């Protein structure tokens, strides 16, 4: 789950980190009212789940209330890499003396938490890592040990932060680690962490990704789930509890298991087509799940054919076949379907499907053959080159 900047800042503030005063606004009037309460000058910042806001014109300095009105009007509705701005964060402008970078994330290779700190803040950390890797001070934290203040002090010293920023940074980094662990975050990033002209260390931007698997112990995270960026198809699938990712092609994909679903998308592309989605229906594959999956695919206007790829493990092929037949009774499917069914009781399943086969419901013996047919059907109905 990705948080908007302002949600991330509020999350950080909950752990006692200093953030400049600000308010979220959904309209120009709300932005103006917020700026009047905060006092100008303020920053008007687009809230989107993507980077590159500044370059796209999504972050503006507003010296006066008129500026706030003008900038907010321009930024709301702005398209930033496919993300349309629906809300802005109005924040008291800070006098920046220096910009740093700080983050914690899981290092999957080391299987420990990785802290990164750099005096080269305000730019993409990937760029710093490439051009000047020595400018990033890294520490690995064993989650069993946790992070001691003495270690943080050594870390801050090795990053070369100036004396004036040391105390503030040590305090914030300790809290940042606490927020990262306690909040079950995949990533907490402050870029930039700033030293102000009057010597305070502050969080100027916040990027937070929370682990969706941890929601059972963080009831309040449901509010973040509601503000995730999903297209219409993804929202529909999410509400049915399906693992779905929207893609740009014309072949709708349904498979059981994440790996097989990914592989199905790959194979569709390899035989010259393009998948409209990734959809994992999991192990069950009963009629309810299958009907839900078909509904989601059916509502996607880009879909020209559907490829159902099922490998029966514990799930039996005959149960899956019955599920498909029942789902087809319930949902009026527009695009032709190609089914590949293998594994446990596949023969029994194929016999069940046999009697329902037609031009618009075909069966193929292998994954590759099924992919070829699904792509041919999509092309025949004008879905090529999507």
């Amino acid at each position: 789950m990705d948080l908007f900047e302002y949600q991330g800042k509020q999350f950080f503030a909950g752990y006692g980190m200093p953030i400049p005063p600000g308010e979220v606004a959904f309209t120009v009037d709300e932005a103006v009212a917020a700026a009047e309460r905060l006092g100008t000058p303020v920053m008007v910042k687009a809230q989107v789940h993507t980077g590159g806001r500044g370059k796209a014109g999504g972050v503006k300095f507003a010296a006066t209330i008129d500026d706030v009105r003008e900038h907010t009007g321009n930024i709301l509705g702005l398209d930033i890499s496919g993300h349309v701005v629906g809300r802005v964060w109005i924040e008291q402008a800070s006098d920046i003396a220096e910009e740093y970078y700080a983050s914690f994330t899981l290092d999957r290779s080391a299987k420990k938490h990785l802290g990164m700190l750099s005096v080269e803040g305000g730019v993409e950390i990937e760029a710093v890592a490439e051009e000047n890797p020595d400018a990033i001070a890294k520490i690995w934290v064993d989650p069993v040990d946790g992070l001691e203040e003495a270690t943080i002090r050594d870390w801050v010293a090795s990053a070369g932060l100036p004396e004036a920023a040391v105390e503030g940074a040590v305090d914030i980094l300790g809290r940042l680690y606490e927020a990262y662990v306690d909040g079950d975050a995949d990533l907490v990033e402050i870029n930039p962490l700033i030293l102000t002209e009057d010597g305070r260390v502050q969080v100027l931007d916040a990027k937070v990704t929370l682990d969706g698997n941890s929601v059972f112990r963080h009831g309040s995270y449901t509010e973040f789930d509601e503000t995730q960026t999903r297209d219409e198809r993804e929202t529909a699938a999410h509400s049915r509890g399906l693992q779905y990712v929207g893609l740009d092609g014309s072949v709708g994909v349904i498979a059981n298991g994440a790996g097989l679903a990914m592989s199905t998308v790959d194979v569709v592309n390899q035989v010259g087509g393009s998948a409209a989605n990734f959809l994992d229906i999991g192990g069950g594959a009963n009629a309810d799940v299958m009907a839900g999956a078909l509904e989601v695919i059916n509502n996607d206007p880009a879909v020209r054919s559907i490829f159902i790829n099922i490998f029966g493990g514990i799930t039996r092929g005959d149960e899956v076949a019955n599920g498909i037949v029942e789902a087809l009774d319930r949902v009026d499917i527009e695009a032709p379907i190609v089914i590949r069914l293998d594994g446990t009781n596949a023969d029994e399943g194929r016999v069940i499907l046999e009697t329902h086969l037609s031009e618009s419901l075909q069966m193929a013996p292998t994954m590759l053959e099924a992919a070829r047919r699904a792509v041919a059907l999509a092309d025949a109905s004008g879905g090529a080159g999507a």
Partner: protein
Amino acid sequence: MSIFVDETTKVVYQGLTGSQGRYYGLLNRDYGTNVVAGTNPRKAGTDVDGVPVFATVGDAVEATGATASCIFIPAPGVHDAVIEAAEGGVEFIVAVTEGVPAHDEARFYNRLKRDFPGVRLLGPNCPGIISPGRCNIGITAGHIALPGGPVGIVSRSGTLTYQALYELKEKGIGCTTCVGIGGDPVPGTSFIDCLEAFEADPETKAVMMIGEIGGTAEEEAAAFIRDHVTKPVSAYVAGVTAPPGKKMGHAGAIVSGGKGTADAKMEALSEAGVRVGLNPTEAGELMAEIVATL
């Protein structure tokens, strides 16, 4: 021979009294696995279809000599279940449960490494392990695997593991052990652990590897193969066409910051001498070619 488990492995099922635990535990027993016990602190003294239930793994180990545990506990309880199993004295833990928070995984991984270095964890979020004809722990359908070798399989994905077993069975090729390491960010057992064990196993003559996007586990495996594996390897990496920034079902399967792409993984594996297929069928065909030359 097989790796990690064999016909002498005695398994206790944590969560045997739940619907999933009961279903798969008894299915594993039907396959021939030594299912010796279950645990549930509130149902100690009862049994599940003749399998005795104990309060803790420690009690089960004491009474039955269990050497492995299989976890079917819901995600919130997996951290404590893993530690309980290690403290209870088993040497092999299979955590099938999906949806375990990454911080929990990092915590019990490092705790085991430090305090229980002799204990191996497989998973979480994995289908388990099967040594066809000898032992099946987890949710793999036993009959899709042909016993006898000579191929060892290691996979990050569940259904693709089945697909791999099936591709080989269709060609009459058997499997020594098939290990599903799972698709989570901190797997207890890595590709490298399995490659090392397969390299040391005299019965395994070749290895089939199924990877997927996200992380750098495949690249690390490639480096290990280049330096330490003499047996031939075929591989497939799922997610060639996955868009960046989107989790493809598994918590660990995400391309971010230009890292974790299937192309980079396939290239690293090819450079290490691995024969890489573009889909599971092709990887199976490559393995058939390898087996024909053994």
